[in-house]
């Protein structure tokens, strides 16, 4: 069995402004970073990546 996650996340590492669904501006600090390697064994609850 397999689980596939597809998600949207900020790109790049510089802070930017993002417009929310109600038009509010949110400051994004940093972008998406992976914290795993291909083939790595992971346990539930371990970080795969972070913003």
């Amino acid at each position, binding site marked *: 069995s397999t689980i596939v996650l597809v998600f949207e996340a900020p790109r790049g590492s510089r802070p930017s402004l993002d417009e929310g669904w109600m038009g509010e501006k949110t400051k994004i600090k940093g972008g998406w970073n992976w914290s795993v390697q*291909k083939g790595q064994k992971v346990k539930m609850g371990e970080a795969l990546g972070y913003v």
Partner: protein
Amino acid sequence: LRRALGDTKIKWYPIPVGLGIGFLGLAQLYRINNRENARRREEDLETDGYVYSKGEGENTGRDGRPRRRERIRPTGPWQVQVMSTLPLKAMSRIWGRFNELEIPYYLRVPGFKLYSWIFGVNLSEVAEPDLHVYPNLASFFYRKLKPGARPLDPNQNALLSPADGRVLQFGAIVNGDVEQVKGMTYSLDSLLGTSKSSASANDSSLFSPSEGTPQQSTFTSKENQEEIIKHDEEFANVNGISYTLPNLFSGDSQQKQPVKKSGDASTTPKAASEAEVRADLALGERPWYSSLTRENRTALYYVVVYLAPGDYHRFHSPTAWVAEKRRHFAGELYSVSPYLQRTLPGLFTLNERVVLIGRWRWGFFSYTPVGATNVGSIKINFDRELRTNSLTTDTEADRAAEEAAKRGEPYTGFVEATYDAASPLLHGHALRRGEEMGGFQLG
């Protein structure tokens, strides 16, 4: 023979030019025919492991009757060819039944210990220390872990692993293609489905009549579809503004902005509302997920986690998010071992899977458990209506395909249900970080 070979005079004659041209023409025709058939077959590929042949009248055969679903015969090495001839779903169901047979009391502990030794199960983490409690392998396979056995990463901005397993692949999605192991790619539309679901799929929307009790959700049809619209109109009245769709929050192609309401909801004809909803659900020109990457400030990423037979087979929420809808693709049940993932292109788009679509802090979020031959049953805790790897769903898929053909509409290959009524505010089912969502069961 010796005399014939030795004495016979060999005389060469030129082949007539016309015959040679005719032969070459036939060979060319044969090649073109093969190529066209392959192209047509690719075009006809749907997203659930079956082909819905298009013939005369788009969805009907020469006899005018709707064409039946035809199983995809994937190309690949002989192992894949052999596997494609097997009745994998039936085998999976038999395997499930077999594993539900009760094991004699005194054989349970040695049996489970042997299984744990072979597949590397850490018995010290199992919630129930007395292995006699598990009557069969199916219940041991779906075991719980001790509280605290899987601490969550303290970083609140981290995306957690949804289950124990191995990270097979991860990366960014470029031009809507998800890269599989060893460079094989498949389209995101094939994996998740397109933004528009078939009418039959819309008819089976999930609707809970009592707000806030998503556990009691039931399947509904057109009447309740109208009720869902009414429900949203009521929500709009409370807020004084009209959100044209329940998927205002959703990751669909059109990012909806609140619209000032011109009239009272009760004066709006239902047919008009329905038309509005249908218009809102219509496909945009761009892929439905592409507008989510807002002005290139965000990107789509993916990660594939493979669960080996000895792993803990319940899965959890990797972050705080809202599941808005689920799409059930009743496809095939090939093995999803890393070997087959390398050798069978588009494996995830052939297999039976449940696609949960929603949103998280940063936008679009989807969570797709993909079934396999040995673990064909996918369970979602907050969706009691979902039935995977069952004869009923196969029959329903056949019927939906035929009904879509009768209406002259293409069948999208999945049945969609929404969790709108789970929370009137969120328009979906909210999931906490690390919360158990469901699991894979044997057979």
